[in-house]
């Protein structure tokens, strides 16, 4: 079957862009697990994906959008290695050849690019024009756009935009019936439900995203960095959140607990910031027109003082900024001792407390910071330390505690989503098994 599929698909994309070789297929599976498909294809356009879909359909095969390199997960799948292996032949679609920037509209500040381009590659193109996607965590830039948008990722957020899918103004996608659809690009509309939102976050289950139009912004003309020490983490957090509530459109802010501040901002021979033992450090970046950035910095300083903070000078914040732009900030995604826990704003303080008590109960040490704050939420970033067993115990306890505070990933209208899939994809061709989560 694989050979037949390979031959048929090769007529669409050319023989050099299709493979059944074990080494190629293994690129899309967690190490030590079987590949999630029988044939991998590297199409060059949405039209080719639509034709590959026709071939798959005609041969009783499924289609799974994947990305290469991570050896961990299918595009948009909820958990590492969780993309279920369908019980029938499966064609893997990797859009790594679809990396063109189709249009850069510098008047409207929108970029139209194919889904296979990584955030980093797009950021390079933008950077040459004085533009950027925004201050998203660096791990957002490692992903191709298609993967970035196929799953809702509350953890990949920037202060001014919120989660990254909020930057998406439109997509092109291939639907299960082979139609290539393009959502109309406009700042806003009142033309019924926002159908774009059926494709974003749909894990390839309602359509494969082949291109996206994203809002971009000009690289700010000036930046003011500041840092404040606090007796407690909740105090620092409250000061930062207060600025957001007052309407300051900060570019980025982060709260380190004392241990994380010492570890992250005190290396390289320089002295760590002056933070009380059980205290915290709030670092913040105001960016934009010079006068505005300065005014925002003043609002921040006022809030900082009102919440018991003391100004520790800009140096720790400058250190933070270099770290966040030079290297992967926060715990690396692949680090088993690292956790990234997104939560709404009011849940961040309880979540932080729960993390600390769960790790204490497990006799593990943890360093914590609260980052990626925006007016809708933020993330508690945890790095576990101590012996292996207590780290593992703490890891599980923290996840349990987090689940009770913020809940598991869920779809409040799970049955409707399943029914929609059944209507749009009666043959269950597109990413079978996707979107299968618990109801909220």
């Amino acid at each position: 079957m694989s050979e037949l599929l390979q031959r048929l698909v090769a007529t669409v994309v050319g023989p050099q862009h299709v493979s059944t070789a074990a080494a190629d297929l293994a690129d899309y599976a967690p190490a030590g697990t079987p590949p999630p498909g029988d044939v991998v294809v590297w199409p060059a356009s949405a039209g080719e994906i639509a034709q590959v879909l026709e071939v798959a359909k005609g041969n009783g095969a499924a289609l799974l959008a994947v990305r290469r390199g991570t050896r961990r997960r299918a595009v948009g799948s909820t958990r590492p290695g969780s993309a279920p292996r369908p019980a029938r032949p499966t064609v893997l679609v990797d859009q790594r050849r679809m990396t063109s920037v189709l249009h850069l509209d510098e008047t409207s500040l929108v970029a139209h690019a194919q889904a296979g381009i990584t955030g980093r590659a797009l950021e390079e193109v933008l950077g040459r024009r004085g533009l950027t996607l925004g201050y998203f965590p660096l791990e957002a830039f490692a992903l191709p756009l298609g993967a970035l948008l196929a799953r809702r990722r509350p953890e990949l957020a920037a202060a001014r935009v919120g989660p990254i899918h909020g930057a998406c103004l439109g997509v092109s996608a291939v639907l299960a019936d082979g139609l290539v659809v393009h959502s109309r690009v406009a700042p806003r509309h009142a033309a019924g439900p926002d159908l774009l939102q059926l494709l974003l976050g749909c894990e390839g289950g309602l359509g494969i995203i082949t291109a996206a139009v994203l809002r971009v912004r000009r690289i700010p003309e000036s930046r003011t960095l500041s840092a404040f020490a606090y007796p407690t983490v909740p105090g620092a957090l409250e000061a930062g959140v207060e600025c957001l509530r007052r309407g300051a459109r900060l570019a980025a802010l982060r709260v380190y607990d004392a241990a994380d501040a010492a570890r992250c901002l005190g290396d390289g021979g320089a002295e760590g910031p002056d933070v009380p033992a059980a205290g915290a450090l709030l670092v913040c970046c105001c960016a934009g027109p010079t006068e505005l950035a300065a005014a925002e910095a003043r609002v921040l300083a006022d809030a900082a003082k009102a919440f018991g903070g003391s100004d520790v000078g800009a140096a720790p914040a400058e250190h933070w900024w270099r770290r966040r732009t030079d290297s992967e900030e926060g715990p690396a995604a692949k680090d088993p001792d690292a956790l990234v826990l997104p939560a709404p704003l009011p849940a961040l303080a309880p979540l932080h407390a729960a993390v600390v008590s769960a790790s204490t109960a497990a006799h593990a040490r943890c360093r914590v910071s609260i980052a990626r704050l925006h007016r809708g939420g933020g993330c508690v970033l945890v790095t576990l330390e101590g012996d292996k067993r207590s780290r593992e115990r703490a890891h599980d306890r923290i996840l349990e505690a987090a689940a009770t505070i913020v809940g598991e990933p869920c779809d409040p209208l799970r049955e409707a989503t399943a029914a929609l899939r059944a209507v749009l994809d009666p043959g269950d061709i597109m990413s079978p098994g996707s979107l299968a989560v618990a109801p909220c």
Partner: protein
Amino acid sequence: MPPAAKAGLVDALAQALDRTRISSAACDRTAYARDLWPRGLIGVAHGDVAPSPPDVVVWPETTAEVAAIVKVAVARGVPVVPFGAGSGVTGATWPTHGGIMLDLKRMNRFVALDGDALTATFECGIVGEHLEHELVRRGYTMGHFPSSIFCSTLGGWLAARSAGQASTRYGKIEDMVQGLEVVTGSGQVVRTGTSTVGPDWNQIFVGSEGTLGVITEATVRIARAPEVQLMRGWEFARPSAGLEAIRRLLQRGLRPAFVRLYDEIDTFIAHLGTSGPWRGRAGRRAPGPDGALDELRRAALSLAIPHVGPLARAALGLFDRVSRSGCLLVLGYEGDRALCTAEEQVGNAELVRAGGRDLGPAPGLRWLEHRYDISYKQSKVFHDGAFVDTMEVATTWEHLLEMYEAVKRAVGRHAMVMAHFSHAYPEGCSIYFTFVGGSSSRREAERIYDACWRDGLHAALGASGTVSHHHGIGLSKAGFMQEHHGELMAMLRALKRVLDPAGIMNPGKLGLP
């Protein structure tokens, strides 16, 4: 509605809610037969006051009652039309297939406020003005100020994707929604919340115009009540210069609350409403509607109805004056005092750089004072056989001027047209065209009216615009949904099948069956 479905409907509904809140009286059926769609108002001027009355009107008070009503409708195959306050201007509440008119205004309670999360929850029948009062007395604002705030509801805003006058700062209603309670077309009660997997259901029910379900409760984002409002007027030689200034301002990261740039004719009309020139002198009246519409009406009639000779001459004089009037920009910041002051400073410098002439605070304050006035005076226009309507479309900055010219040309073939640019975003802007035309014959007036919409929307869509920015689709633009969405319409039809399998929810709207 087929007689079989009708028989016993009231009795069946009486199982769902108290009989005193069910009516099939002729006066109620007439009152709910239409919204404020101007095409309907042409009919009204000719005595057709109830183009499509519902069979029954119901006033539920709880979500459970709404669910029970929908279940009755499903069992009998009777249409249900959710009704907020009927301020819609697209025919979205016209019960074209008869059935049950479900007025939500008795579901008007304030439910909760979370000052930490900055969210508030209300039942959806609450009228905008009351909603804002609930927030203001607690020290907050929703920041949603449609001109119809006194006669529209939260549910109507959500269902039609409404925009308020301060949308540049606070966003449109879809930017504010955090969670919904909805009774779907099968009578099931669902809560959307923030989904982390699958579609963003908030954004699916927002804009659904009652075709997928009834929104019964909503949680929306709020803000702290502003400490200051800094208003100002500016004059630009041409719309293009004003637009360029707005674009630069927003793309530098500034977020004024109010941004309204009037083209030459709209500026002139605004100017007419003053007792003296608005040009920045304190004490003089800045733009306002009084009198302006009268002049507009006379001008329109003179253009549209050739036998009104002397008025035609007045119209020519009007256009001569227009060409010299420049373009007025009203711009205002609100929020935290220190931040707004800094924003205004940076913004002013940008506007001066772009060639704007500072008119001082007076025009801005005057606009603020009268911002809800104009809309309620329009009906007079219809009495003389003329019509006035507005077409609000949006696109990215790259296509904005092209869309402006294209729509003006297209509609201008049939009626007098002017525009202002409001609801500005870093990536684009909406244009609000006002067009006035008419004829003493109803059929001819409707023909001209339809031609304005047909040609205007084709022009907007052809210039990469949207079919609507904030009034919604209803009946008036239903025929343009396919052109707006293209093949994506298949997804909307699929949604309809899933959420309203019996096809009873507000049939005929949004280009759906």
